[in-house]
């Protein structure tokens, strides 16, 4: 649990550094997010006059939900102590609960920007969740379980084989992950223009330690999605069951490498594509849903034969 908490800002810093380099800037150091968090924690909170108790408690709750979800995803070792308490559906539902609370907080102060962010966010979520479920269905059909450690174990075994449905499921998962984490082309995490914001519009009124918790929760969510993709589709180096210290070190190194590669690729991808119009995003997410459906149908063919 502590590992994901420490690694998340580093991942965010790496992505920003990659994007800066591609823009021919030097960019801030990869440790800058830690400094940002420390600075925000020390500042005083400025609350709107009509902000309610919900507005003040939501950052803590969002952080708790995201942290618990992130702890359920295997990072460098499967078979975590309490990994059986929640499967992939529970993880997605915990992230959905965090999003529900954030949308409510956006509506709380009664400004139009909060409403913009909340209404767009729930529209994206309504299309991303069925696509995610189709991916989970394909994985459950292949691996026989929705528990992440079991899926990882299955993928490591030779029974997995080369399957086109896995490739389609991977593409669909990546599209959903981009939508859920508010990255380009769905939403711009670094925009200063209010009318292009979705996630930023909901947190517009937050400041100080509240904002620090929400930013950390967002970094944690990105780390969670990347860890899930790595654990399901690229489980090399994952330690299964009990092993010696050497294996754990190898697992940690493999995990760090996967995070670095994923972060770099995400940065390059964000730099090479423009943000989509809001009403073109349903086409993209609909495409992810179709990919998931196609993966399931193709699986019915190959499993049923």
């Amino acid at each position, binding site marked *: 649990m502590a590992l994901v908490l420490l690694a998340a800002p580093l991942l965010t810093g790496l992505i920003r550094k990659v994007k800066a380099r591609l823009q021919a800037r030097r960019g801030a150091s990869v440790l800058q997010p830690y400094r940002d968090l420390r600075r925000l924690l020390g500042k*005083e909170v*400025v609350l709107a006059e009509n902000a309610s108790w919900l507005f003040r408690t939501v950052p803590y709750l969002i952080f*708790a939900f995201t*942290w618990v979800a992130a702890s359920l995803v295997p990072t460098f070792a499967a078979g975590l102590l309490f990994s059986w308490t929640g499967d992939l559906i529970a993880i997605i539902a915990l992230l959905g609960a965090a999003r529900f609370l954030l949308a409510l907080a956006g509506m709380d*102060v009664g400004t139009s920007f909060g409403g913009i962010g909340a209404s767009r966010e*729930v529209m994206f979520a309504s299309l991303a969740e069925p696509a995610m479920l189709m991916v989970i269905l394909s994985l459950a059909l292949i691996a026989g379980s929705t528990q992440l450690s079991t899926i990882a174990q299955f993928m490591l075994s030779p029974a997995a084989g080369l399957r086109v449905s896995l490739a389609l499921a991977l593409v669909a998962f990546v599209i959903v992950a981009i939508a859920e984490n508010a990255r380009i082309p769905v939403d711009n995490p670094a925009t200063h223009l209010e009318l292009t914001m979705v996630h930023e519009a909901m947190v517009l009124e937050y400041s100080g330690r509240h904002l620090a918790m929400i930013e950390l929760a967002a970094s944690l969510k990105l780390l969670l999605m990347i860890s899930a993709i790595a654990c399901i589709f690229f489980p090399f180096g994952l330690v299964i069951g009990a092993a010696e210290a050497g294996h754990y070190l190898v697992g940690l190194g493999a995990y760090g490498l996967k995070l670095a590669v994923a972060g770099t690729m995400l940065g390059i991808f964000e730099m090479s594509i423009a943000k989509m119009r809001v009403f073109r995003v349903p086409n993209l997410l609909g495409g992810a849903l179709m990919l998931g459906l196609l993966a399931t149908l193709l699986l019915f063919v190959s499993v049923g034969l």
Partner: protein
Amino acid sequence: MIVAVLICIFGLLGLGIAGVGLALRPLGRTVVYAAAAGLCGVIGLLALIGLGRAPSTILLPLGLPWVGAHLRLDALSSFFAFVVGVGGAGASVYALGYGRHEQAPQRVLPFYPVFLAGLFLVLLADDAFSFLFAWELMSLSSWALVVSHHREGDNVRAGYIYLLMAAFSGLMLLLGFGLLAGATGDYAFETMRAAHPSAGVAAFVLGLALLGAGSKAGLVPLHAWLPLAHPAAPSHVSALMSGVMTKVAVYAFVRIVFDLLGLPSWWSAVVVLALGGITAVLGVLYALMQHDLKRLLAYHTVENIGIIFIGLGLAMAFRANGFAIGAALALTAALFHVFNHAVFKSLLFFGAGAVLSATGERDMEHLGGLIHRMRISSFAFLIGCAAISALPPLNGFVSEWLTFQAILLRPGLPQWGLKIMIPSDGALLALAAALAAACFVKAYGVTYLGRPRTAAASNAGEVDKWSLSAMIGFAALCLLAGIFPGVMIDALAPVSQALLGARMPAQLALPWLSIIPVEASRSSYNGLLIFSFLAASTLLTVWAIHRFASRAVQRGPAWDCGFPDPSPATQYTADSFAQPIRRVFGTVVFRTHETVVMPPPGDVAPARIEKSSRDLIWETFYEPVARAVTATADTLNQLQFLTIRRYLAFVFLALVALLLALALWQ
């Protein structure tokens, strides 16, 4: 056991008669509601005890002399009686406080206990005659409650449509029972269970059961009466109608299809799955377009009925393929959702009633900022919203998780129709769940959060303690059912054992109180541990922040990017919140169209945006029927204005025709 329950039911009927006299005195009202709450609570408890026992029957010498009234309390009836008991008790406790605002108590009080009695009697009936008698009693007493505020708005029309649909459902069920009774004409359920109808007759009976029970439950396209009638009734009755009466309709469907019909065929499961999926998505899309709070909740009931029917369809599919454990999982998921929906929908209607009595407004666009004025009821409403959006660790998540596990369970079914329908239903269920979360962010955000949009909203006050205690009680039930789901699953085991011959693995013996649908290697969920982790993380974070970070807070005007607008009219309204979803889904489903009228530059007239949408189901199914009936009635009306000679000619022709028929017969 059944005798005790019957005594309570007769008590309720007696309360109804007493209510005629007691209605005009405030103490009388309290007595009636308190006694109703007590009786419902007792029945609920008796039902809970009766779940584990063998079925008990009784034959009363009432009704038709050669049939009598067979009554039976078995596992399925006990579970639904428990749900009705909990719902009824909660609504009665709520009504102790809410009923003080009732303008015409003599129109509500006599019918309320009779409605409750009708609900219980449907569950106990063991032959077609007493079933239909109780069904009609339930429909008529609820109709009387729907038109109790007959001078307000459109309530009379709502009651009229409700009465038509109730008569339709009764007719369909009557025909279904007639087919089941067959040539022997024996209407007792025992004989129907033993007889095995042919495949054609079984298909007809299933169709009639879907039409009859489905129209009462709210399956698309027979749902049109629901969003008209449920909001028209007083709030505690709306809670009962949405939360409990629709479940009794689900009971009717389960009883006919799973108990009386025997083994279903796989394509009937496809039909039920398709109807369930379409109902779920259409219900929540309709709900998203509403800005009347109670109508939004009523459309949402349609969505949850769809989810329950998806579970029932899965149970039928697995049963048709002999996969009993999967059928037990799907049936348990559906029945768990029955209980959950009764609890959180009642809670939400109580909240809507609290808002209505505090502000006099039902329209969300005239509310706002109520979280500051109505602290406790807004917290309970929030729990209800979170529960209905299937957020962990509350109970809505557990029943949807179980339904998803049933969908993911076994793709190796041989029929291709099922192979394609089940994943499609999974996608539709996920879409409905995500849209439900969107719908309730809108409902809570526009009603309770933000700034007050009218004077009524800024002058609201908290409601009385009876209403609050009912709401808090149900909110606590939502949390408990989410944290200890194994209790409910084990309680449902006798039901699935009796109907399907199989049950889910025993849950309460598992370590840490997890639930495991099929086997541990497949998936598991632990509500208690997730809740504890969430609580621990929150407390740890709060402690760490308050220890190491700054604790200063300063109040100021809202930032709003530097353009704060003092007018609350610049906030998002319910319609504007739903606009992205309306653009994505509404253009296809409702043919929504937005026209913008922009005045030319220099003109001081305001720009206008108008949105139009059509209810395609009403236009396709209901209006043609209404037009045809009116046309036929107009034509037949000519018979009223004939001369005496024409009437005599009718009599003469009828006599001649009968004599001719007699001659030809011989």
